[in-house]
């Protein structure tokens, strides 16, 4: 690809595929449990954390992780117990996390809109390092193993939380496990997709899979696969037209989801 060394191409393609697979798997929970507003806020908190890292000269990824997981730890119980409508959570906290992120970028040494700052916002092809790749590999493996180990419990939770409790499945620890993994995924996907757009990968691949299947095993599998396809195709589009990677992934994901809604057998009458 345009004279890039093979090692870099392999890192980029693998990073995109792993990010897509991890987001696709977790997106199944985000879509079904209607955690969109929570994930949206978490992705911007991760962005604010990374921006703070830039301002303080600390590794942005570390503070992105702190931001996303802290948001999950605070918002999870609020969303669960106070039963706040999703738009209230988003309406109050999205501007706050966005404002904090922009203030931290403004305070970052050098130009506020330096390439690393822009990378946090829009995602960057070249921000991905081999270390990031190994972290993503560990994360995707952990998510896949968790889903495999606790498939029954997750299936019950995704069907109906009250009925899951009724059948003797303790749903709360699994709910918090999902939030924790979502926070981790958002933070690790930040470099590639960017803080403003990372959330699309948590939503579109799973939402696409839900258009085609009723069997949860198939939905998990296809959500991960659609995640890989969207991230990979976004990477290709980004290379081909020199677009920001996050934006290219959003364009592909939206197109894919639109096609899925159009062709969905769940909407066919015959």
């Amino acid at each position: 690809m345009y004279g890039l060394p093979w090692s870099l191409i392999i890192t980029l393609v693998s990073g995109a595929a792993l990010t897509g697979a991890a987001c696709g798997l977790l997106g199944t929970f985000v879509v079904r449990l209607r955690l969109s507003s929570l994930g949206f806020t978490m992705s911007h908190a991760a962005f604010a954390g990374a921006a703070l890292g830039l301002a303080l000269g600390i590794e942005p990824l570390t503070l992105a992780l702190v931001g996303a997981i802290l948001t999950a730890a605070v918002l999870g119980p609020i969303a669960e117990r106070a039963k706040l409508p999703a738009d209230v959570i988003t309406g109050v906290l999205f501007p706050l996390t966005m404002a904090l992120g922009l203030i931290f970028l403004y305070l970052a040494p050098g130009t506020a809109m330096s390439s690393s700052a822009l990378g946090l916002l829009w995602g960057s092809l070249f921000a991905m390092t081999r270390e990031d790749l190994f972290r993503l590999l560990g994360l995707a493996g952990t998510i896949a193993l968790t889903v495999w180990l606790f498939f029954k419990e997750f299936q019950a939770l995704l069907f109906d939380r009250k009925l899951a409790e009724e059948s003797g499945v303790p749903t709360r620890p699994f709910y918090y496990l999902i939030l924790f993994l979502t926070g981790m995924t958002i933070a690790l996907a930040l470099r590639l997709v960017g803080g403003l757009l990372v959330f699309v990968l948590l939503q579109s691949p799973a939402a696409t899979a839900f258009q085609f299947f009723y069997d949860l095993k198939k939905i998990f599998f296809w959500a991960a696969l659609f995640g890989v396809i969207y991230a990979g195709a976004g990477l290709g589009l980004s290379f081909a037209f020199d677009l920001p990677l996050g934006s290219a992934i959003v364009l592909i994901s939206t197109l894919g989801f639109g096609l899925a809604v159009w062709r969905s057998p769940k909407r066919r009458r015959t």
Partner: protein
Amino acid sequence: MADSIIELKNVSTVYEGERVPAIRDIDLTIESGEFVAIIGPNGAGKTTLLETINGLLPHTRGQVRVLGQDVARFGTQLRSQIGYVPQEFQFDETTPVLVRDVVLMGRYGRIGLFRRPTAEDYAQVQEALELLGLAELAERPLGKLSGGQQQKVLLARALAKEPKILLLDEPFSHLDCAAREEVAELITRWHRERSLTVLLVLHDLEAIPQSCHRVVLLNGGRIRHDGARERVVRAFTLAHRE
């Protein structure tokens, strides 16, 4: 003398954000193998009582013991032995689950963490599906079924659990007359053959199965009458006439 399988002592349950208890000062003892109907007008606290017994709603006062254990401490483990069919359910057309999976999920608490369903689990699921006449719908998406069929699926789910106690909240509400009789007969047979303890919430007095000899009348969150079927039904009818 039979053992007490459910014991409520001075129990009150208040919903989150409410000040008035939905049920209050409830003293109720159910013996193993009893078939009890709970009746009362809308808002009497019938559903609250069932969900206090299985611990889905935490009680705010008193003590609830089921199968000899404190529900507040052992609710999750106890619920794997209690079948429950809720009154309210709504599954939209896109609900990503097949009928067979819904019935199997009833056994997940019994199966436990880190274990997969075995051949015996699948056999129980098949038996429950056949008992309710759902075998042909096993691979259909739940959301595509009618309300009555969905109610039968939830009943099959409760039976597949092989419960020691069955809590049924208006289990005939979505069924037509023929299906209602079939299901009532099935519940009666399970109660008789498996010594199952059954608590059945109903608002339609005509629907109380013949084998149910004890009736509890709830009103305003309190137990107003508890005793032989004819006596309690007469009291309820008189109270409604006045």
